[in-house]
């Protein structure tokens, strides 16, 4: 009889053992998630007020904030259509907004609208009369050439890019009078600035020339600035009516359900009925291992002399035993006896039993065969 003891941990023991590591891991994961969420910028990409890239506008955003302007970056249309009385809205250069969205922005009664390199649709609704001249001005230091206070204060600035033609009521700056990169339109209670040059206000260029002063005076007119960067998805240009999708949408869910089923099957098949039992095994060495090893050494070093000597000695022993020749007999006596018993030529017998070591492999093979035949004849005379 023998009694049993359970092996392994109970659920409670496992829990007690694991709770500390689990707690620590949980805290680490939680903290890193919080830090990650906190450090995610609300906007990103070119001309973003949070981007520190060459084409970002973090420098401008900081500069504005230092001068008491509250900058709110956003990628959502909702922030651009809220009531904007006494506030500035800056619309970034990229993205596509459809007419409805633009009209809602127009209706939001922003006191100051700044359009950075707007498209035709935006110009039509938000800055009627201003048109893209379809001519790009080269990027260089230019005189304001107008009486816009912001431009006059800034003096020369490095501008270039898209140029616009404006109706006579508008103030046009930084251009040749027809094609201008900065256009100010003052309509009923609202100032609209159309700026063709976005590069002037990026991190890379802001410190040059009068760029910073131009930006501050142009953009920092109100205490609140909403910096809206339209995204491509927001527009109506996304083709959502391009026919039926290539894969039915349910395939994705079926794939997830299949993955879950695969997990269940893996757990079902993967669980062993107890661990693999291990055992200490004895060493296995074949007894003839050393002999075979020595044969390989003979072959590698082409020790034909040693091999031939061993074969001859062995054959001689057998012959002496079979013919009753004394072990210490003279070679000549041995040769004579064997020659008479077998009928071989005595010279040949001498050559086979006492000759020179073979010179090559063929000679060794021949010698081996002759010794074999000689001893065979003794066994079966």
């Amino acid at each position, binding site marked *: 009889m023998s009694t049993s003891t359970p092996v392994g941990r109970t659920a409670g023991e496992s829990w007690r053992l694991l709770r500390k590591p689990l707690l620590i891991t949980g805290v680490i994961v939680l903290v890193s998630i919080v830090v990650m969420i906190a450090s995610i910028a609300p906007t990103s990409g070119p001309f973003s007020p949070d981007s520190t890239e060459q084409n970002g506008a973090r420098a401008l955003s900081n500069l504005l904030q230092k001068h008491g302007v509250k900058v709110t970056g956003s990628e959502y249309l909702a922030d651009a259509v809220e009531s904007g009385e006494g506030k500035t809205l800056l619309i970034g250069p990229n993205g596509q907004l459809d007419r409805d969205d633009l009209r809602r922005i127009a209706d939001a009664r922003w006191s100051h609208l700044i359009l950075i390199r707007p498209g035709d649709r935006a110009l039509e609704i938000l800055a009627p009369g201003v048109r893209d001249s379809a001519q790009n001005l080269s990027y260089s230091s230019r005189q304001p050439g107008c009486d816009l206070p912001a431009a006059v204060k800034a003096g020369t600035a490095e501008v270039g890019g898209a140029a616009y033609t404006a109706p006579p009521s508008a103030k046009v700056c930084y251009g040749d009078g027809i094609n201008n990169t900065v256009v100010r339109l003052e309509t009923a209670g609202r100032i609209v600035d159309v700026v063709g040059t976005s590069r002037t206000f990026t991190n890379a260029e802001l410190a040059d020339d009068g760029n910073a002063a131009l930006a501050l005076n142009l953009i920092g007119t109100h205490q609140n600035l909403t910096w809206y960067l339209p995204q491509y998805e927001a527009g109506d240009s996304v083709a959502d009516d391009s026919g039926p999708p290539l894969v039915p949408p349910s395939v994705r869910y079926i794939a997830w359900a299949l993955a879950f089923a695969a997990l269940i099957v893996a757990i*079902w098949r993967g669980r062993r009925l107890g661990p693999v039992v291990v055992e200490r095994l004895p*060493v296995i060495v074949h007894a003839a291992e050393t002999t075979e090893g020595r*044969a390989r050494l003979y072959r590698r070093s082409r020790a034909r002399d040693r091999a031939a000597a061993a074969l001859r000695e062995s054959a001689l022993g057998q012959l002496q035993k079979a013919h009753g020749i004394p072990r210490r007999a003279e070679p000549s006596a041995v040769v004579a006896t064997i020659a008479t018993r077998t009928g071989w030529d005595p010279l040949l017998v001498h050559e086979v039993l006492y000759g020179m070591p073979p010179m090559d492999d063929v000679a060794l093979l021949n010698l081996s065969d002759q010794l074999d035949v000689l001893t065979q004849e003794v066994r079966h005379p």
Partner: protein
Amino acid sequence: MVLTGRAAVLAGVGVLFVALVLPSWGGIGLVIAAVVLVCLVDILLAGSPRRLQFSREGDTAVRLGQQAVVQLLVANPGRRVKGLLRDAWVPSAGVQDPPHRLDLPHGERRRLTTHLVPTRRGDRQADRVTVRSIGPLGFAGRQGSHRVDWTVRALPPFNSRKHLPSRLARLRELDGRTALLVRGQGTEFDSLRDYVPGDDVRSIDWRATARRGNVVLRTWRPERDRQVAIVIDSGRMSAGRVGDAPRLDHAMDAALLLAALATRAGDRVSLLACDSAVRADVRRPAPEDVLPSFVNALAPVEAELVQTDFRIVVSQVLERLGQRSLVVLLTGLDPAVIEESLLPVIAPLLRRHVVVLASVADPRLTELEATRTDLIDVYNAASAARTRLDRDRLTATLTRAGVTVVDENPDQIAPALADTYLALKKAGRL
């Protein structure tokens, strides 16, 4: 925790449900929740494998190649346990049974039988008993293991016992239990009896004849109550594999046959297995206890990859043998080892005792020497011839020193050693 095929089927049905009825995140959530819930309920309702109580009984020893039966008793003080039970042993214990099916209601006991056919000599241990208890729904369950210690000792097979009857018959002839009693068949005086025509006249005791008045014959019988010490070398020379077993196992076989024969001949046999330390030691057991005690002592002995220290062998043998005895040394005929470590220390042994050195020859060498088809074979043959010549030379050296050498193939070593023993006994050299 374990899951069953049913849980997998349920998950598969879930895939169909998601595909056909509810292709959404909600559908997937529903399926996962259903599977997890069913499995959790099943796990909670399954009987606890940890609370089972085990005990074992059955065989503790078996001759190698035969079947041992070990019983496992399971008692269940808890909820009903239904599922599988695996009685795990080390691989060389040779468990014959697949995992047992178990259905054990509360408060009942079951007796499960495990059949073992060990594949290797020595102590074979039970590992652990693992129970997988599946819940009443059959979707999931619990698994737990218990350690229930048990050891089955696989004894040397003693295959050479088939040679015992013929050797015993020859022993009886020697012993005088069969007819002819002439001088030469023993040196111990047995009795006087009347002369019968045909008896050897050289055996006539003239003094007794003169006293009695009729012709009286002296009879002789082989010596009895001699000591035989069998020494098995368990060092690296015995590790080499000849045929399908190491030299050590062939040596054990020969030792057992010799021990059985010598015991029947009235001699006292002792056993020593030794390499760099003594591995097995049986000193003069009672005659009826010789084979069991030898077999038991030899069972766990394995060949160690160390050089045997023959000084230990010699001192141990000298210590335990008083009178002139037979010392049988079962080792290998390795010229380097024997010449360097045995010959320098064997002199005291030879002065007082008769020494027989038995070695298992490798038939592979004969085979190598006979095959000569290509160059590789010729080099092999030359190497094998060199090995044999060295052995022959060593045999001659040992014979000159007074050691009787028995060098035979594995299937012949046991009867050859027994014959050598009988020949020595017949010649009265013990």
